[in-house]
């Protein structure tokens, strides 16, 4: 049932009236209240326990205040002026690639995305979308043989209710923060992954297709559970620029890692960053957290953030199990008027826990960027170690870069290291490249990719190539 309006909207012409009317007859399409939440829950045929959770979150959210501690200046969101149930702003789906913004197609070409995928990404109303659905299904059968569950969170709620009920909100409770609370009340879809005990997931799991195909994307909810001794590498790609104006994106990713299990989570984020004057662009307010619940559990976050007008994001690791470890590798690029306040939290609770933070920030144009990170060592976390390295690269003289490391240590046996550098692309470096025939854009791309190498190496191969291209595209026009 829940899928129906979307299939309709993919089939083209009817979407414009059919779907919108649907929403209108059931309730006001815009704004947030208990009725809207009931509607979302009903549309998705959810069990009562989830609706109750949503309402609880919503009522708590009403008591909360939007955070203002980040170094971000943006026009506040009017939460009553938003659609909360799959109401895409795009009025009519393009029928073929000829109707898609040529600028968008140019970007796809630069990214090397094949034609078929371009159709999917631009939401062209052809069977390509259905193709991607069937691709997902083929995967699923293969994975099922190993007992791996990989499906949408809506499906998981129905089919794997025990797991979802047990773990959803257990890493990021609805009370956590303003945006997480909002997400807990209104999340529409997202991914669910469960890797059973002792299973090594044989392929990289990716949300790349599904999110784009279903055109959700505002309030995703991802839950990954790695049972004991299991392993999974998960990719989250938002490599298609989204052309919406000041769209709010408030997602939650929760990862639970049990004893001896390992999860790698990679993100390449390229939401629409706004135009050259800073108009439009996505507000990316995301809560991502992993809990290493068992001994020897491992988690690694790798992110390449090039998009969004405003980014507020701190993928974190709770290192509860003894000998558990957390890693955070980040490349954040801001150009024009983009703003990013991003970093991580490493919470050491168990004994002998280790964490590693490598953050590379590149600012260009009039953009502003802040690394904000917390390393916390609790009383019981004996022999914990952290190594943090935060490097900033500035292009031009009108951008800003800031590093705000917080360290809270309650255990004397902990060893904590922090290194930070700030540098500029020198004219000498640029000229050296130009003198060898490289164009200025190639030169900047090359220098920046070199600067980020440590992080890029952590990405899965095919992702790394895409990310490298993305870096070049993001920095176009940043020099000269």
């Amino acid at each position, binding site marked *: 049932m829940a899928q129906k309006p979307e299939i309709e909207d993919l089939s083209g012409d009817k979407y414009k009236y059919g779907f919108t009317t649907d929403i209108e007859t059931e309730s006001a399409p815009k704004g947030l209240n208990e009725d809207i939440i009931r509607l979302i829950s009903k549309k998705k045929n959810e069990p009562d326990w989830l609706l109750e959770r949503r309402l609880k979150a919503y009522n708590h959210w009403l008591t909360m205040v939007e955070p203002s501690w980040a170094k971000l200046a943006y026009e506040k969101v009017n939460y009553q002026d938003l659609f909360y149930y799959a109401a895409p702003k795009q009025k009519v789906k393009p029928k073929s690639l000829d109707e898609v913004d040529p600028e968008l197609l140019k970007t796809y070409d630069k990214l090397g995305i094949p034609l078929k995928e371009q159709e999917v990404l631009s939401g062209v109303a052809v069977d390509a979308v259905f193709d991607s659905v069937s691709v997902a299904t083929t995967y699923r059968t293969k994975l099922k043989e190993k007992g791996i569950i990989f499906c949408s969170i809506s499906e998981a709620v129905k089919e794997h209710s025990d797991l979802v009920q047990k773990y959803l909100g257990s890493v990021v409770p609805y009370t956590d923060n303003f945006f997480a609370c909002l997400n807990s009340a209104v999340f529409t879809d997202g991914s669910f992954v469960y890797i059973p005990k002792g299973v090594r997931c044989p392929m990289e799991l990716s949300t790349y297709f599904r999110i784009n195909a279903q055109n959700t994307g505002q309030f995703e909810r991802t839950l990954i559970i790695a049972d004991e001794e299991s392993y999974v590498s998960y990719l989250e790609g938002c490599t298609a620029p989204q052309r919406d104006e000041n769209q709010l994106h408030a997602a939650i990713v929760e990862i639970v890692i049990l004893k001896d299990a390992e999860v790698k989570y990679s993100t390449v984020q390229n939401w629409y960053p706004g135009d050259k004057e800073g108009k439009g662009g996505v507000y990316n307010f995301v809560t991502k957290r992993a809990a290493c619940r068992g001994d020897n559990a491992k988690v690694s976050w790798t992110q390449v953030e090039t998009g969004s007008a405003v980014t507020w994001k701190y993928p974190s690791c709770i290192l509860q199990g003894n000998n558990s470890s957390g890693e955070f590798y980040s490349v954040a690029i801001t150009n024009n008027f983009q703003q990013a306040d991003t970093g991580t939290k490493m919470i050491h609770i168990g004994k002998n826990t280790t964490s590693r933070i490598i953050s590379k920030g590149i600012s260009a144009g009039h953009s502003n960027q802040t690394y904000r990170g917390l390393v916390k060592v609790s009383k019981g976390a004996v022999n914990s170690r952290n190594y943090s390295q935060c490097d900033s690269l500035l292009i031009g003289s009108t951008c800003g870069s800031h590093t705000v490391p917080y360290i809270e240590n309650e255990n004397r046996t902990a060893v904590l290291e922090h290194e930070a550098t700030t540098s500029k692309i020198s004219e000498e*470096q640029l000229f050296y490249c*130009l*003198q*060898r*025939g*490289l164009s200025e854009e190639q030169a900047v791309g090359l*220098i920046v990719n070199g*600067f980020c*190498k*440590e992080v890029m190496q952590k990405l899965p191969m095919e992702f790394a190539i895409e990310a490298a291209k993305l870096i070049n595209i993001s920095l176009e026009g940043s020099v000269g």
Partner: protein
Amino acid sequence: MTNKPILEIRNLYAGVDDKEIIKNFNLTIHEGEVHAIMGPNGAGKSTLSHVLTGKPGYKILKGDVLFNNKNLLELSADERACEGLFLIMQYPVEIPGVSFMTFLKYALNAKRKYIGQSELDTMSFMKLVKNEAEKLGISQEMLKRAVNVGFSGGEKKRMETLQMALLKPSLAILDEADSGLDIDALKVVSGGIRGLLDGKRSLLIITHHQDLLEYIEPDFVHVFADGHIIKTGDKNLALELEAKGYTDFIKEAKC
């Protein structure tokens, strides 16, 4: 040696901000010729190499420069490079995180694209580089390292020579305006470059003492002072210069 001019500089005036450094400068280099420009430190010799290669920050006030019959001053720095102008840098710059192999591939493909050739596939490229590198005594390990990072002076020059070998410029400028290369590095760079002089490729050496010229024999030696060439001769002029010292030599030349 033929009579085809590669580089023709006429009445060139250039400088930084309002400061004129190059004044009424004239020079013609033909195919296959080796020229040396000598002058005291701080005379503006490096400015000349920078102005010719299009480094930002310099102002052309007057004059013409033709390179292979094209108006060089209208081209951007990367276009000049692709046209076949190569600067062997005095102090090659480090680019952390970018392997030499990657850098060479970018450079070579940029040039190939410019002259209308298709990009080399990875296999042929590796083979080509390996071949040239071997001739210059460059190990595979060096090619994997980041561009100039942690390289000794001699190693950096060796890598410059490798780039020249791959890019096959019609004119190379060897800028050693005020560097104090040790003898080993000097031998490396001069040996490598000598090997690349095929009778068609031209070379412009910019230096302040004649050590380098013992390794690469110039056809012409020019003495640079007050922003232009005050005297031209053969290699013996370099020796005369060395014996007299710049101050006396320039005084005499002006009389």
